Structures are given as structure tokens and as C-alpha cells.
């Protein structure tokens, strides 16, 4: 009997599909799979794409040095297109493919959607750069944070403000995003806990170009604030600082990592002296400087955002957790991760022990001076001074 050609082809295709599927399911003894379900297109792309570059650099370095537990790392990347439903699907696919740890998106909604899938599968997961400190608790014991939490940055800014002798603070917040709302509130809480005084709270809407009402209000305050803190970023921060300075108010302004962009350094005189926090400063001899060199060697261009470094850090933390656990078993990695102390990464040291899965890590303070970034100092605040999320 002759078998028609198309039937043979179909059978062959089925057979192929079958074998490829079975290889996918089988755990490879010589590879350790790490998944990254991130928003590589959509509004998270500016954060998750740099993070991924850092992660890939870390994987290269780890593999070159013999891998983790003697096994090479295979990084499996899934684009969630910044879609919450797709984030859950992508996480489920990673679980099905047998990852032992998972990196998830930079924003809360997709991170939680992926996180609950990892939690159910008892696979530890961490958001690449979401800074909301309540995120791990929203999911459960298998969820970790990586990026400098809003309350951590706020605590550093508050202690710096007190060191400078500022007594009265004014905060400007926007309730449009958790970041612009919560960070100034954490600042106020920490500042008051350190003996400072909150004079007033101003509110703005994201995208609002006219800050004359807020500026007038600041002018009329009694007592006048010694310091103004805000988590506003582009386009709000440039508009605010210009109008503030134009009104003759020269009160020092403290910002956060949202203004760590070329725009801020190009603002000229109005931004002079603005101090802001971020995840690290590449001072000479620092690990971050070494990282920047390695980055440029791999990608052929200088690193232009701190998110690549924090992505690199996260991969290094995962490697440290697996090494410490001595196994690829989910619960073991989770416990080891939760007890990590002073892991050396690109931006400094990271500690998870006793931090409820929100790491304490170095926060760098920088000053805008003559259009350049000047390092004020690296701070690792006393955990007791960090406001509760």
C-alpha cells in the first residue's frame, strides 16, 4: 500500500513536534533554567529592556565562571507586551518549561499577575524594578523585590535632609501613580520620625504644566520650608523647578531616581544644587565602575541607565540564593534567598535577611552641579528608620 506524501509529511511533523515537546519537558541535568517574563514592548519597555541587558550580562559572566552549582544557566525570555493577562500566561509557560526562579515585570499589576503563578508553583520570583514595597506581601512568601524601594529612598533622603539641618519640609505629590504619591509620603513620615516638621503637602496632576498655584502656596507658607521633596519626574519636574525658581524661591529641592535623566542635567541654573537618590554611583574603584566597563565591552556602547545594573544585580542575587541553597528546589532557594546578607553586586551590597523580602541596598545621593552628576555619598540606612510600607 502506498502512503500519500502529505500523510507522511504530517506524520513526520507530528513525530517531530512530539519529540521536541518531550525534550522541553525533560529537565536537563546540565542546565539551570531562569525565566524572565517582562514587558519588553509597551510602556514597561524602557525599564524591562535595560534590565534584561543587565541580566544577560550577568548570565554571560556566571556561565563563563562555570555556572551555578556547576550547571550552565539557560535564560528563557518571554515578552508580556506589558499586558496583565499575558503576564500570567507567560509566567505559566515559564513554570511549564521548568524554570527554577523567575524575574517578572517592572510594574505592580503584571508583576503580581506573574508572581501568583510562581507562588502557586513554589518558584521564587522577583520584580526587575518595581519599587512599591508592598509588592512581595501582595503575592506571598515566594515573591521578592529587587529595586530600591520607595520607602528606602525616602528614608535616605530624609536622613540627608536632617543632616543638613533642615527643620521644615514641604512635599509635592501626585496621586496619579503610587510612586509619585507614596515616595513623598514616606519621606514626610521618616522626616517627622527624625524630628523634622512637615509644613504642608502640595498636590499636582501628572502632565500638569502650570505649577503657579503650588508655587504661590509655597511662597505664602509660614514657617517657610527649608527643603522641598518630590518624586515628580518628566515633564512635571522640569516645569515645577523652573516655575519655582522663577518665583524667586531658592529652597533646596530633593528629588528621587525618576529625575535621573539627561533632561535634568540639561536644565541649567534652575536645577543647580538639586539632590536626588538613585541605585548607585559609579565612583572610581567602585564595583559599578567595573560593571560599566564590562557592559560597554559586551554591548559596544556605554551604559545609559541604572536599570541595567539593577537587572545585573538581580541575576547575581538569584545565583547567590541558588548557591546558598545548594539545590534547585524552589522552597530551598526561597529560604536561602530570604536569608541572603551583604551579597556583592554591581551597585554595592544587598541584604534580604530580616527584610520581609524587600532588600536593603545602597542608595546613592547625587547632586546636579554645573550640568554634571556629582556624588554626594552612598547610604545604607538603619532599617529601623525605614517607614513601614
Amino acid at each position, binding site marked *: 500500500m502506498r502512503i500519500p506524501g502529505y500523510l507522511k509529511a504530517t506524520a513526520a511533523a507530528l513525530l517531530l513536534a512530539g519529540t521536541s515537546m518531550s525534550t522541553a519537558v525533560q529537565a536537563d541535568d546540565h542546565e539551570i533554567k531562569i525565566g524572565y517574563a517582562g514587558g519588553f514592548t509597551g510602556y514597561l519597555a524602557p525599564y524591562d529592556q535595560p534590565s534584561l541587558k543587565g541580566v544577560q550580562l550577568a548570565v554571560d559572566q556566571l556561565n563563563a565562571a562555570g555556572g551555578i552549582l556547576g550547571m550552565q544557566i539557560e535564560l528563557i525570555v518571554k515578552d508580556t*507586551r506589558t499586558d496583565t493577562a499575558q503576564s500570567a500566561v507567560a509566567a*505559566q509557560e515559564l513554570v511549564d518549561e521548568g524554570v527554577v526562579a523567575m524575574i517578572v515585570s517592572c510594574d505592580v*499589576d503584571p508583576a503580581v*499577575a506573574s508572581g501568583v503563578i510562581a507562588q502557586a508553583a513554589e518558584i521564587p520570583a522577583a520584580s526587575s524594578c518595581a519599587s512599591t514595597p508592598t509588592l512581595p506581601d501582595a503575592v506571598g512568601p515566594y515573591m521578592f523585590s529587587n529595586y530600591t524601594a520607595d520607602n528606602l529612598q525616602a528614608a535616605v533622603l530624609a536622613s540627608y535632609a536632617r543632616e543638613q539641618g533642615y527643620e521644615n519640609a514641604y512635599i509635592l505629590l501626585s496621586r496619579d501613580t*503610587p510612586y509619585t504619591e507614596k515616595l513623598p509620603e514616606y519621606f514626610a513620615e521618616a522626616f517627622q520620625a527624625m524630628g523634622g516638621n512637615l509644613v504642608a503637602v502640595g498636590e499636582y496632576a501628572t502632565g500638569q504644566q502650570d505649577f503657579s498655584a503650588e508655587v504661590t502656596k509655597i511662597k505664602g507658607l509660614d514657617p517657610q520650608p527649608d527643603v522641598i521633596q518630590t518624586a515628580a519626574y518628566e515633564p512635571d519636574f522640569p516645569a515645577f523647578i523652573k516655575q519655582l525658581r522663577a518665583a524667586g524661591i531658592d529652597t533646596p529641592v530633593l528629588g528621587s531616581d525618576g529625575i535621573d535623566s539627561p533632561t535634568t542635567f540639561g536644565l541649567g541654573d534652575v536645577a543647580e544644587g538639586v539632590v536626588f537618590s538613585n541605585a548607585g554611583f559609579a565612583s572610581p574603584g567602585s564595583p559599578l565602575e567595573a560593571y560599566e566597563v564590562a557592559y560597554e565591552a559586551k554591548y559596544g556602547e556605554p551604559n545609559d541607565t541604572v536599570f541595567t545594573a539593577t537587572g545585573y544585580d538581580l541575576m547575581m542575587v538569584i545565583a547567590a540564593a541558588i548557591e546558598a541553597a545548594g539545590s534547585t528546589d524552589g522552597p530551598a532557594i526561597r529560604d536561602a534567598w530570604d536569608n541572603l546578607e551583604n551579597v556583592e553586586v554591581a551597585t554595592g551590597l544587598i541584604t534580604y535577611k530580616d527584610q520581609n523580602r524587600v532588600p536593603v541596598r545602597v542608595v546613592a545621593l547625587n547632586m546636579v552641579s554645573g550640568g554634571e552628576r556629582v556624588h554626594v555619598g552612598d547610604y545604607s540606612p538603619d532599617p529601623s528608620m525605614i517607614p513601614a510600607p
Partner: protein
Amino acid sequence: MMGRMIAPGALAGSALLFVPIAILSLIGWQVLGNAQQGTLTHMLIMIVAVLAFSSFTGNSGILSFGHAAFMGLSAHITGALTIPQAQKAIFLPDLPAWLADADFHYMLLGMDLHFFIVGLIAVVIVTFVAFLIGIPISRLGGPSAAIATLGLLIIVYGVIVGARDFTRGSQALIGVPKFIDIPTALVFVAIALVVARTFRDSLSGLELRAAREDEPAARAIGVNAHARRLLAWTVSASLAALAGVLLAHFLGVYSPKEFYFQLTFAILVMLIVGGMSSVSGAVVGAILVTAMIEILRKSEDYINTAWFQEPTVFGLTDIGLSLAILGVLFWRRDGLFGYREIEELAGGWRRWFGLKVHEAEQGAAPVRIQQEGALEVRHVAKVFGGLRAVDDASLSLKPGEILGLIGPNGSGKTTMLGCISGALDISEGAVNLDGHDITQMPAHQIARHRVGRSFQNIRLFTHLTCIENVKAALAASGTRLASAQMEQRALALMAELGVADYAERRAGTLAYGLQRRLEIARALALEPRYLLLDEPAAGMNETESDDLLKILAGLRDSRGLGLLVVDHDLRLIMRLCDRVVVLNKGQVIAEGAPEEVQANPDVIEAYLGKRRAATKTAPHATQGREEP
């Protein structure tokens, strides 16, 4: 009675879509892994959402950006009510006590009705809110209504972010129970499908689709477009609320931005691909777009592993999807389904369901109308800025009479018809219909008082079938008949005008002369006492115009209705009319029997100018029509 509740087409169409979806989904439920099941469930929920958009946009022709707002509202209501107590205390500490402690656990036959009750509460609240918002929006038409829905989306988003005690503001609502799986979602897809199709095929839906095609013409057959739009808005909002509840309990975590532009555009893409004006198109669009994303996503994974490895290239999914949409728009501007439903594509569906195929039958003899009363126009004026298009004009029309209204171009004939039919507001004077003052009445009410009209440039509902054109008029004029009888009536009217053979053709595809006839058949569906015809013979050759003359004279003889005929074809006017009124510059300059008017020097002057009038005779009937 059931026949009136659910049209046979709606049932057939719903079944043709639902059965394959259900079978494939249930197979998927059994064999697919968790990840693919998630994708499948999400697709089913998106079908409900697309049906919500389609129920409004498809029937009204108004693009809605606002329905995602209703999804967000209901998702946040169901979220605030179903998050477990312990998590409420953490994430929503400022929730009012009565809400924090609200408990909707009721048992029925061992089943916890909690989610069912909460979901119902969310849908009911959102539907009510949508009704209130719909009152102003439904009065707008076209692009301004679309912009209003866009504003609605932005405002509702702001409200949800602002109501932070209930919604956590812009932060994500976390811990909403996830329980939507494929079988649950399928149940709601079935409900949404039946609701969407029933509404589309209902008489209200037909009237709204008529208004979508041509609002002035719809008003002229008695369609209250505002009321129909409000109904569609409310029905579709309830479906959107349902989709919101489903999405909430599928995602488990969401913030207000989940229900904003991204979702709106994702749904609109499905609608555009499938066909904006077709329920079947909406469903198929949702399935195709989801399938396309899945295929593109898998190929992206494959391409990245096989070719690029590093640096990984992203965005192939979006590029592929965009190309596919451009392709659909290029080759099928109205989407894959256009204006059709699935059972219309699967021809012969009526036979499968044991239904009778349309047959042109001669209906009962037309009813003669009462001969008392008159349509009286008294000293009416219509002022456009400085122009008095109609100026102190009076005329009257009795049942059984054919009145010609002639005059040079720009003399105010069409404006006069507009004033009588309510399409234009009258500036001065009054119109009296059988002793009732109808001066201030809106067009659709005048139509229901049995004044029909046709238009100078044909205004059919081009994308509806011929029989739907007539049925829309039957429905809008308040005729209460069972579905089968209504079909018979419509066919009888069409047979009278000789267009019954084209019942299932799209009206826009008919030849010109047939379109004119269909327009008259549609006007006759109102059972008019008075029929206003604006240039019925325009563009017809002599044979066609002779046929028309016979038909019009026949209408008067069989039904005894009063005809007001505006035409440039003086041959037709002179042979058809009992009486002729001549307008010039908005004023009546002559009135009387055709022969008298023809000989009137004022009329000759108005038509031919002063100097020529002295040497020429009157415009003679055999001269034929003037330039249109």
C-alpha cells in the same frame, strides 16, 4: 410570541457561532496546559467585551471609546466586594465599615451564590450609571458622540483613581478571587451572544441600524433615534459590565489603567478586523486577533531562539498584528464580515432550521383611509439667516388628492417639504394635520401621525436588505405584528411597488429606478394619510416615469391617500396632479388646475424671465423635464 422575542436569525446566528466555540474550548479545557488555558479563557472574556462594544457601535454606527470605562467600574465594584476580609484590612483600610463587613454569601442547593450576587450587583449598578450617562450622549450623533465617549473614558478613569478608599487609587487592587475558567466563561459568552444578537435583530435594533444608515430618513419613518441609541447604550453597557466582572475574576490583580486606552484599542482592533457592523464579525475578530497574537508570539520566541539569541529582538508580535490589520483594512474596508451575519453567509440557513424562505405573495388589498380632514400649511415661513427660503406660504392637501408643487430651482419646494415633515423647524406660521397642530412636533412623531415622505436624493438604508428597509418603517411607525406577519406585510408592500423579488438584496445594490420604488414602499409602510414625494421621477427615462405615474395614481385610487408631489418633470405633474401650487422665491405665486397654472403669466415669468415671457408661451407639458 417567542417569535417576537428572539428572531430566528438571531438564534441561528448565535448557535452557528457558539457551538464551534464551545466544542473547541471544551476540548482545549481538557487537553491544553495551564498557560494556553489562560489564553483561551482570556479570549472568551474578550469575546464578551467585544460583543458589548459591538452592540452599541455596530448598531448605532457611533464608535465608542467609553465602554472600557464600564468594564473598569464593574471590575472595581466586584473587587471591593470580593477581596477577602484579611486583605481588605491591608489594602483597603479606609473602606466604610458597612462595605468592609458586607457579606453576600447565600446558599442555594449547596452552591455559594457569593460571586453571582456580587457580579449581578456590579452589573446592575453600572447599567444604571450608564443609563444616566447615556441620556446626554444618545442625543449626540456621529463624531461628537464618539468624542463624548472618549471624554467619558477619561473621566471615569479619573473617578476610579480618585475614589481611593474603594479602589486604592492608582494602585493595583490585589487579592480579587480568581475563579473564571473556560466552562464559566463559556456560559457568559453564550449569554452575551444571545443578548447581542437578540438586540440586533429586534425591532428596536432594526430601527437603530436604520438610523445608523441614514438618520434623517430614519426619523422620516418614525424612528426615535435618540431613544433607540439610549437603549443600545444601556444594553451594551450591561454587557461591558459583565465583561469587567469576568476580567476582574480572571486577572485577580488590576489597577484603573488596566481599563483604559490599551484595553479600548485592543477591543477596537478586534472589532475592526471582524467587522464593526456585525455581531458575528465581532466574535470572529476576537478569535482571529487572539489566534494571530498567539501565533506571532510563538514565532517570536522561535525566531529569537533560533536566529538572534542575543540581543533578543522584541516587538515582532506588534508589527505582525499591525500588518494584519492594515491588510484587512486594505482588502476589506468594512472588516471581514462587513455588514453580514454568519447565517447570511451560510446561505440556506432558514431551511436548516425549518423556516420558510421569503416568498413574494400578494398581500391583502390595501385599506382605504378615512377621507375626512386635511393637511393644512398656514402662512409658513422658514428663515435661514437672512434668507427667507419659504415666505408666508400656504397650501392644503386633502386625502384622495394629488397636489403638485412646482417652481424654479431654489424656490423653496424641498424646504417646504422639510417644514411639513418636521425635518426643519418652522420659523413662522403653523402646520395643521387633520385638526391637530403639528408645527412643533419632531419628525419621527409626525411620521407616526401618518405623514410619509421620500427624499430628493434617494435616502435608503443602503446596507440593510430591502425587506429590512420596509420592516424598519413598519416597526418604527408602531405597527404591532408578529414577526411572520410583519414579513408578509413588508413583502406585500414591496410587491405593490414591484420590488418584492429583491427582498434579501442590500438596498444600496439596487438599480436607481428600483431604489426610488423601494423608497416609496418604505414610506407606504407608515400607512400614510399623506405622502410627500420629493422629485420621485428625477433621473428616470420616459418609460420609467410613465410607470411611476401609474403607480402613484394607483396609490391614490386604491388607498385614497393625499399625495404632494414635487417634481421638475412637468409632463408628469401636468398629467398626474389634480391641482398645482407654484412657488417662487418662497412665495406661492399661483394655484389651481394644471391648465390654469400653465397659462398663468406670473408662472411663465418666474420660469422664463420677464422679457422672454412676453414672446414665449407657457412651459408646455410636452417640453418634458427641465434640468434637474
